[in-house]
């Protein structure tokens, strides 16, 4: 698939970013989680394409791992949270949706500018796509800053993580396996921890609106 390599890679990487932007667009938390799952699959696809192109077994394993964790396990966990919290919509984000989308595009531009230096080191079909990863990170961070729901914050966190993973694949075809495993495990655990916390908070304080958490202040 030598000829198809580049376009497929572009397609998959593009999909990652599109999912990220869509999460900003949609308000229904369920839909957001779905977007996250799709993004996980796309990410796995990128890894797979690179693996097949570079004949890299380790990367293939990573791809499978990513598909498992980010495509199914994590979204599954999140769905459980959502199910436990009926009618949870991102009612009023701190920055409304159109503004968010405009801002997101600005972030994407910024990420292109930033990653120029990185691409310059080794221009290749893969590294050209680094801006997409950076953009995903920034969009995720933006989501963290602007979304009120606990779940959508978790999603934002995961967007950041996926973005970084994408950069990793594109630049260095994955970090050493031990680190990769550790990172994946950490992500998983963080999600678990956060999920448990959400449950606790809901039992204790009776809300998943993060604005209610304003007890601790100077």
């Amino acid at each position, binding site marked *: 698939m030598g000829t198809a390599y580049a376009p497929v890679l572009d397609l998959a990487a593009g999909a990652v970013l599109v999912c990220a932007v869509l999460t900003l667009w949609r308000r229904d938390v369920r839909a957001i989680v779905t977007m996250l799952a799709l993004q996980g699959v796309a990410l796995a696809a990128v890894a797979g394409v690179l693996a097949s192109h570079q004949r890299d077994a380790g990367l293939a394993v990573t791809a499978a791992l990513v598909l498992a964790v980010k495509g199914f396990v994590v979204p599954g966990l999140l769905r459980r949270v959502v199910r436990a919290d009926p009618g949870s919509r991102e009612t009023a984000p701190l920055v409304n949706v159109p503004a968010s989308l405009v801002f997101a595009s600005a972030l994407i531009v910024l990420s292109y500018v930033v990653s120029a230096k990185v691409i310059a080191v080794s221009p290749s079909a893969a590294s050209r796509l680094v801006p997409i990863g950076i953009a995903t990170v920034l969009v995720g961070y933006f989501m963290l800053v602007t979304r009120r729901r606990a779940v959508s914050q978790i999603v934002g966190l995961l967007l950041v993580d996926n973005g970084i993973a994408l950069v990793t694949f594109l630049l260095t075809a994955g970090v050493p396996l031990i680190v990769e495993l550790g990172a994946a495990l950490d992500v998983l*655990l963080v999600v678990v921890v956060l999920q448990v916390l959400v449950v606790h908070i809901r039992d204790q304080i009776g809300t998943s609106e993060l604005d209610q958490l304003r007890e601790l202040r100077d």
Partner: protein
Amino acid sequence: MLCYAALAVPFLAGVLAAARPWHPRTGWMMAVAAGLVLALGIALSASTAGGVAITALHGAIRVDALSAFMVVVIGAVALLAALQTSRVMSYEIASSVTTPRLARQYAVLFQVFVTCMLAAVLAANLGVLWVAVEATTIATTFLVSHRRTDRSLEASWKYVVLCSVGIALAFLGTVLVYFAAIHAGGHGAHHHAATLDWTSLMAVSHRLDPGVMRLAMALLILGYGTKVGLAPMHSWLPDAHSQAPAPISALMSGVLLTVAFYALLRFKAVADGALGPAFPRAMFVVVGIGSLLVAASLLIAQRDYKRMLAYSSVEHMGLLALGAAAGSTLAIAAVLLHILGHGITKSVLFLSSGEIDHAEGTTEIAKVTSLLARRPALGGVFGVGLLSLLGLPPFALFASEFNMARAEVDAGLWWVVAVSLGCLAVIFGAFALHARQLLLGDGVADPVAAPRSVIAPLVVALAACAAIGVVAWPLQHLLTAAAHVVAP
């Protein structure tokens, strides 16, 4: 052998704690484990002070003077924290703040936490270092929310989210370093596990691509800086420190922050090789001054004595950053001395403030007064701790702060020294103001004696802090040896 032990001891202690339901004995067992870690750390320092590095586990573990020193710090603070654990758990169970089940969970997580920090400082691979630091976040989440109160849950949520996103940036930075290293290594895009190892990174550091390294260093400082508690990523710190049980606050403020700073020191050495000192120095100066300003500003009208201590941690991390900015061997040695002194002092303060909280039932400064008259021992320890924290002789922080200032002036950063001295003066005033409210004044009731088992370790710790502040032997040798690892 020693380094295996250093990792195994706390881990096994954790397994033991998990195996059996909570009992005060568990606390003492944890203390013994921490004591062993301290002893191992001292042994490691002694054997690495010559400049040699011990490697183990096929090079996955690498102990040089710097790591060994950090092991000492972790051991010392963990010992102090563990010594209070059984008492804290006992009265929390007694007052049904917590349950034996949660106490057991606490003990296990405590050990996991310590193990992760040890892993972070012993790891040869900077990627693994990242994994370990991120793991500490996970381990401490439920320690912060141990009390299951609204406030503690809120604190732990903020803690996890802020730190995870921050540390994620650090991972991105690490990846970029890795990328630069691969392309500096000469062997194309073929990566192998050892590329992120400290030794191999240092070997190629001068060939790393400046553009990438600049971006990477910025991300690393932002990322690990979040964990260190440097402004403007410090916001989680006062919440988490004020809500966690006292021993955990001690561990977090005393070592967790500085373990993350240890990571920054390592990466700074790499970046210095690639970029020269100018860029990292600029970054460190910015965050350092920022932290000092934030701490000074928010301490003036502080109303909660635990948050007061937390902000002082922000201040001291800022001082560390400025010391790192100077970057000379003297500076780094002073930074390490500061790490040790701050670890001991701050844990003493958090532990005694926990006692005060337990005794007075509030953490509001306005509601606590004339402790020296009413609880002489406790108030005395807290007061002396404050003196040490404010960098007054004969305590270690005086020596470290003085030498950091010296090094900064040598590095041409005298205006930085001017600004930081100004902030320190304001902070002194703020602390004096709050200390007057907390400590001074006339006691209404007759003095209440705190249990000797609580006070004695804290007094010993403060004495040790004073001793290392006055006597150079043998610490100075270790400090310079450790400083040489990351400073030319």
